[in-house]
């Protein structure tokens, strides 16, 4: 162990006789933005608590940066975390809160780093105001600054956009992406927001009923849909196009919806032939898109319609 930023092997854990995690295994490479997806109550927070050494694993082994964080106080200085509670004291100022964590983590030149981060999360003008006067979104931004203050190599974010309005969710998402690039951090993102994960994560694991249902790069997961499909936008209604295209040997299925045509192909290389056939039949094409499945479809497949939805 040690090549990866995070390693989880055969992890199981139960609470009061109820199995929460069952034989969970996955790895997160250095520099990745990893999405840990699952419905509420799936065990996402429990997993990161075990990784951070707050809870003991029932069975199996976990490592962060090759270390057991439960036993290794110093190794925790290389790791950051943002739980749903931001870890901030309401009666202290934004800068005061960061200064406290800087002291705990032994940050060098804390004043400079605090100013840098407050500017980055757009709170420089509120630096001396008590955090208790901040909005939920501002507290979350400060929580993010707090989590990465000591330049951790791995950061855990537990549902960072939960409870925020869409604008603030987007801001948090952009911030995480920017920070992971700027500071070259590995990001472990717990989320049940499929859209968020699809936008920013390179790799995902889907956890449901205590088991890993899928673990792959987002590209692979959304590509591996079995049959390739293309969506065409026509400069006119597509109903008649379906009649033309439906007879082609490499088209297995065709649906028209207004001026959109969605075709499933038997052969992924047949797209140019399909376009040529349509043009030959007198159709004018405005756009051709290879369709991939959304993460949502994949998620629902694994998690089950009953508990699905974000």
């Amino acid at each position: 162990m040690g090549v990866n930023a995070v390693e989880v092997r055969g992890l199981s854990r139960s609470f009061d006789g109820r199995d929460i995690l069952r034989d969970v295994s996955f790895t997160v490479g250095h520099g990745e933005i990893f999405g840990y997806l699952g419905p509420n109550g799936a065990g996402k927070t429990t997993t990161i608590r075990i990784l951070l050494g707050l809870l003991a694993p029932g069975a199996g082994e976990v490592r962060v940066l090759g270390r057991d964080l439960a036993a290794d106080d110093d190794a925790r200085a290389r790791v950051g975390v943002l739980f749903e509670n931001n870890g901030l004291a309401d009666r202290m100022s934004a800068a005061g809160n960061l200064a406290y964590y800087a002291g705990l983590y032994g940050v060098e030149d804390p004043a400079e780093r605090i100013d840098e981060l407050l500017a980055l999360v757009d709170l420089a003008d509120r630096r001396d105001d008590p955090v208790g006067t901040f909005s939920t979104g501002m507290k979350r931004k400060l929580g993010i600054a707090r989590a990465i203050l000591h330049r951790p190599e791995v950061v855990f974010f537990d549902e960072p956009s939960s409870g925020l309005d869409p604008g603030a969710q987007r801001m948090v998402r952009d911030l995480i992406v920017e920070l992971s690039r700027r500071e070259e951090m590995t990001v472990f993102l717990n989320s049940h927001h499929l859209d968020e994960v699809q936008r920013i994560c390179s790799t995902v694991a889907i956890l449901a009923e205590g088991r890993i249902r899928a673990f792959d790069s987002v590209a692979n997961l959304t590509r591996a849909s079995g049959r390739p499909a293309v969506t065409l936008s026509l400069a006119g209604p597509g109903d008649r196009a379906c009649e033309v295209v439906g007879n082609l040997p490499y088209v297995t299925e065709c649906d028209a919806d207004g001026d959109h045509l969605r075709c499933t192909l038997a052969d992924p290389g047949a797209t140019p032939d399909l376009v040529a056939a349509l043009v030959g039949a007198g159709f004018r094409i405005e756009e051709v898109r290879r369709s991939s499945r959304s993460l949502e479809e994949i998620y629902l497949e694994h998690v089950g319609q009953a508990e699905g939805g974000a």
Partner: protein
Amino acid sequence: MSTFAVIARREIRLALRNRSALITAFIFSIWFPVMSALGIAAGAEGDAAAVTAGITTITLPVAVFLGYLFCADAFLREKRDGTIETLLCAPVSLQRLWEGKAAGVTVPAYVMMLLSAAVSVAAISGLTGVSIAAEPLLILHFVAVVPIWIGASAGLIGAAQLALGMRENQILGFVFIFGFIFLIVLFQQIVPAESGISAATEAVLAAVGLALLALARFIAGKVTKERIVRTIP
């Protein structure tokens, strides 16, 4: 600066900004000792030694209470709202976190205690004319025995608040009120007003305080992160 000092300093700062705790502490630590000191002065009929003993008697339960009051913010609130979980991920041991917090609770409680004592002495001499001499034993009591007791109180209560669930903590709060009354009665037995304070009783009180401090340390050492995290509501 050591992480111990970092943690303690934060708790002191937070306590100084905790208006409701400060007001409660202020009212309690003035009103309660002054009332009892006046009672003692009336009963002792101008006997300065008896009044001194009365003040000594009242300080330790007040010290314990003040420890409890400031713990409610430093330990219980941070547990209830989940802040403690983030702190447990920092590169400091749980023992160190507990020590820092307990020390940070002890300082404002001790300052309040000294204020309370000064007001009590002034009130007694102003209202009854009995003047209380700053005898060495009384000074020793305030410089050593009182802070030990506050520290023990903060440490024990803090460790219990970290380890117990919210319901159990509520019960602890009730038990504490009865324990507080029990302590007052107990100290009046240990230090009878008629005989004044003695080196022997002070030594016993100091020893008991140190034993409680050691007990607090022992109990805090038994608390695990798992225990704390699993009892966060």
